């Protein structure tokens, strides 16, 4: 609407009982299902969603649709498309990845401990995986459709390790990756915790990727 770029939005519910469904269905009615499509997951959300995507480029973003925060997915989408799309055109990249760590990218509302853990984990990732991208666990990327399809076939991890694996494999397959700084505003309402569990599972995922890619 604002940017002159043709787009459609596909919202995939991961089953969390927070009212996402009703909002998404209403949005679909308001904008028409050529603009917004709401899907129930069957199998892997991404693969399922991709069958319905008609565009040449696919942006995957985590929409934190937890309580109260149902609408913010709308805001970023209209802002993001022009800048990321422009970047892609600039370098004809196969993937454009949002990074919190470079340029004027950054975070909001993170205390020192959380920043330290984030930077430490990222450093470890850089040393072990040498991925060629500065932010592997950021949750905002643009893919060329064929590239995404190819990567889906090759990647085997689950969850956010899957995101990391995608970039690593993309580099192995010779795809080009550009970066764009993003501001990561965490949980508009309330704080999210980074607990010991998350750290352990991150390390497990990292070591798995280290040993298998």
């Amino acid at each position, binding site marked *: 609407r604002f940017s002159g770029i043709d787009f459609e939005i596909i919202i995939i519910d991961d089953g969390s009982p927070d009212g996402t469904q009703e*909002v998404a269905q*209403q*949005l679909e009615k*308001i904008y028409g299902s050529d603009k917004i499509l709401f899907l129930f997951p069957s199998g892997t959300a991404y693969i399922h969603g991709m069958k319905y995507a008609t565009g040449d480029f696919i942006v995957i*973003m*985590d*929409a*934190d649709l937890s309580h109260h925060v149902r*609408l*913010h*997915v*709308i*805001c*970023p989408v209209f*802002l993001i498309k022009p*800048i990321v799309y*422009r*970047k892609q055109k*600039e*370098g004809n*990249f196969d993937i454009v990845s*949002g*990074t919190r*760590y470079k*340029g*004027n*990218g*950054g*975070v*909001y509302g*993170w205390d020192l401990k959380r920043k*330290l853990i984030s*930077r430490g984990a*990222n*450093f470890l990732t850089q*040393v072990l*995986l040498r991925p*060629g991208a500065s932010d592997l666990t950021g949750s905002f990327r643009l893919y060329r459709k064929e590239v995404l399809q190819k990567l889906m076939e090759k990647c085997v991890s689950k*969850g*956010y390790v899957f995101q990391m694996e995608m970039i690593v494999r993309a*580099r192995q*397959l010779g795809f*080009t*990756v550009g*970066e*764009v*700084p*993003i*501001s*990561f*505003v*965490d949980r*508009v309402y309330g704080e*999210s915790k*980074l607990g010991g569990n*998350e750290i352990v599972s991150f390390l497990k995922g990292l070591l798995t*990727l*280290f*040993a298998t*890619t």
Partner: protein
Amino acid sequence: SVSPGSLLLPSLPCSSHGSPTLLSPQAAMTKLAQWLCGLALLGSAWAALALAPPGLQPPGPLRQALLPLPVYLLVAFGCYSLATVGYRLATFNDCEEAAAELQEHIRAARADLRRRGLRL
């Protein structure tokens, strides 16, 4: 698992720090295998020189420096890691404006959608 939350791009003119990485199809070796190979190579070179039987040993001063070299390198890497992470921590941007802007957009979006008939 932690759900990362919402994203908002800075509305400043895009200072895209692109680092286009060129096509470099990497070897089929896993990173682990690469590390093991590298370590094996360096390790055997070091062992050959530093632990050689008398007669094949390199000259005195060189040998003295060679023996503790692995430990030196480890410590050097440790210092480098601390310095790098420390620097990056210190220069980690805080996006106050972006957060405020996001709130504004949410407000605007809510109003707009309510007009179009969305009921929360």
